[in-house]
C-alpha cells in the first residue's frame, strides 16, 4: 500500500497545503508568472516551514528588498531605488492573508511605544469604545469580540512605560507572534462598513455583486481574506488613524520616469484631531508596503 503510506507522510508534513488527492475540490490560485506572486508563495513556504517562528516580524534594511528582486523586473528595481530614498527599513509580516491587520496593529503599538503619546492612547480608546457600541447595535454577540478588544486595550497600557507591566520593544516583538494581537481588526472594519453601509455600498458593488452585509460576511470577517481599499478606509475611519499605503507593482507611468505611488487613508468625521479637516497635512505615522497579495511595514527616513 505505497499510496497509503505516502499519504500519511504528506499529511504530517503539509497540514495546510492543498492536497493533491483532491483535485476535484482543489481551488487552484490563479497562476501567473508575475514575480511578485512567486515571491509571495515562496514566502508562504518559508513561513510554513518555520511554524514556531511564524509570527516573527523581522526588521531589515530596505536593501534586502532589492536583493529579493535582483533577477526580477527592472521596473521593480527602479521603484525600490526610489523607495530607498525615502525609507530606511522594512519589517516583514507573515503572509497568511491577515498581514494587513497584523502590520497595522504592530505598527500602531510600536508607534505608541516610541512616542509615548498618552493623548493618542486616550483618543483611540474612545474610538475602540465607539466600535464596541457599533458592534453591539449591529447585533454582534458581545462575547465574540470583547476578549479581542480587552486584549488590545491591555496591550496599549503595556506599551506605555511607567507601569509595572510595561514592555520593551523586544517584548512587543515576541508578543506579536501571538496571533491575537491583530485579530480585532476584522471586527472593527466590518462594524464600520455595516454602520456606514450607504457610504460603502458603491465601493462594495465595485468588488462584488453582493450586498454590504454579504461582503462583510465573506470578505471582511473571515480570517485570511485580503484587505482592499474598502477595508483600509473603514479601519482608518473607525479607529481615527491615518494610514499610508505604498504600492510596489510593475505599473509604470506615462511620463517615462519611475515613481512609486502611495495613497494616504485619512480618517474622516468626528472631532478627530487626525482628521482631514485640520489645516495642516496629515502625515500618517503608519506606512505599509503593498505588493499584490501582501502588506509589510515600511520605516521612513
Amino acid at each position, binding site marked *: 500500500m505505497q499510496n497509503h503510506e505516502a499519504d500519511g507522510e504528506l*499529511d504530517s508534513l503539509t497540514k495546510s497545503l492543498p492536497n493533491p488527492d*483532491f483535485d476535484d*475540490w482543489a481551488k487552484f490560485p490563479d497562476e501567473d508568472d508575475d514575480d511578485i506572486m512567486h515571491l509571495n508563495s515562496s514566502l508562504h513556504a518559508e513561513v510554513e516551514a518555520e511554524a514556531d517562528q511564524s509570527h516573527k516580524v523581522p526588521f531589515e534594511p530596505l536593501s534586502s528588498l532589492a536583493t529579493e528582486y535582483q533577477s526580477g523586473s527592472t521596473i521593480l528595481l527602479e521603484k525600490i531605488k526610489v523607495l530607498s530614498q525615502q525609507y530606511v527599513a522594512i519589517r516583514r509580516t507573515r503572509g497568511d492573508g491577515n498581514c494587513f491587520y497584523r502590520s497595522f496593529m504592530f505598527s500602531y503599538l510600536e508607534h505608541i511605544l516610541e512616542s509615548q503619546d498618552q493623548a493618542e492612547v486616550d483618543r483611540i480608546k474612545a474610538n475602540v469604545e465607539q466600535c464596541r457600541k457599533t458592534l453591539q447595535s449591529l447585533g454582534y454577540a458581545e462575547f465574540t469580540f470583547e476578549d479581542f478588544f480587552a486584549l488590545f486595550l491591555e496591550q496599549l497600557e503595556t506599551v506605555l512605560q511607567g507601569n509595572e507591566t510595561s514592555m520593551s520593544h523586544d517584548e512587543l516583538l515576541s508578543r506579536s507572534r501571538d496571533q491575537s494581537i491583530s485579530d480585532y481588526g476584522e471586527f472593527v472594519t466590518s462594524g464600520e462598513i455595516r454602520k456606514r453601509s450607504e457610504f460603502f455600498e458603491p465601493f462594495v458593488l465595485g468588488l462584488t455583486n453582493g450586498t454590504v452585509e454579504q461582503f462583510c460576511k465573506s470578505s471582511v470577517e473571515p480570517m485570511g481574506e485580503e484587505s482592499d481599499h474598502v477595508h483600509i478606509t473603514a479601519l482608518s475611519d473607525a479607529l481615527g488613524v491615518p494610514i499610508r499605503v505604498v504600492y510596489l507593482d510593475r505599473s509604470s507611468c506615462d511620463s517615462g520616469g519611475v515613481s512609486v505611488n502611495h495613497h494616504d487613508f485619512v480618517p474622516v468625521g468626528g472631532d478627530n484631531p487626525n482628521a482631514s479637516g485640520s489645516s495642516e497635512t496629515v502625515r500618517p505615522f503608519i506606512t505599509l508596503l503593498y505588493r499584490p497579495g501582501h502588506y509589510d511595514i515600511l520605516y521612513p527616513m
Partner: protein
Amino acid sequence: MTSSSAPSRKALSKIACNRLQKEMVEWQVNPPAGFKHKVTDNLQRWVIEVSGAPGTLYANEIYQLQVDFPEHYPMEAPQVIFLPPAPLHPHIYSNGHICLDILYDSWSPAMTVSSVCISILSMLSSSTVKQRPADNDRYVKNCRNGRSPKETRWWFHDDKV
C-alpha cells in the same frame, strides 16, 4: 487511542478557553432550537444532538454533531462533523464530513457554535432530496486515513441547498 476523526490536538489557548466558557453559558441560557448539547466536562469536544425540523425531509430524525475546537479557536474554525450515521444529504458525505463554507474558508471569529448549528439545520431543512454527494465514494475513500475535513480544499459549487 484517539478517535480516528480527532485532529492532532493541542490544548486550548487561554483565549479559546475563555471564549468557549462564554459560549457554553450562552448556550445554556439560550440554546438554538432543535439542538441539545450533551454536557461533558470536555470543553474541547462538544457532542450536539440535532433534531430534523418538523415539515422537512429530516423531521423526527435525530443526528449527532461532533465539534472539535482547535488551540486557536475562534481565530481558527472548529472541526464539525456528523457522527455516524450521517444524514443523507447532497452536501454531507457518508463519513460525516460537511461541505459548508462557514466551516472552512468563510469561518469568522464572529460566528459561534450556536450560529454554526443554525446554519447546518438550515442546510438540512432546505434539502429537497435525500441523497449523498455525487463524489461521495471517492471522497470518503480518500479520507480513510482519518483526514480532517479541514484539510480538504473544498469547492463550494452550489448554494442552492
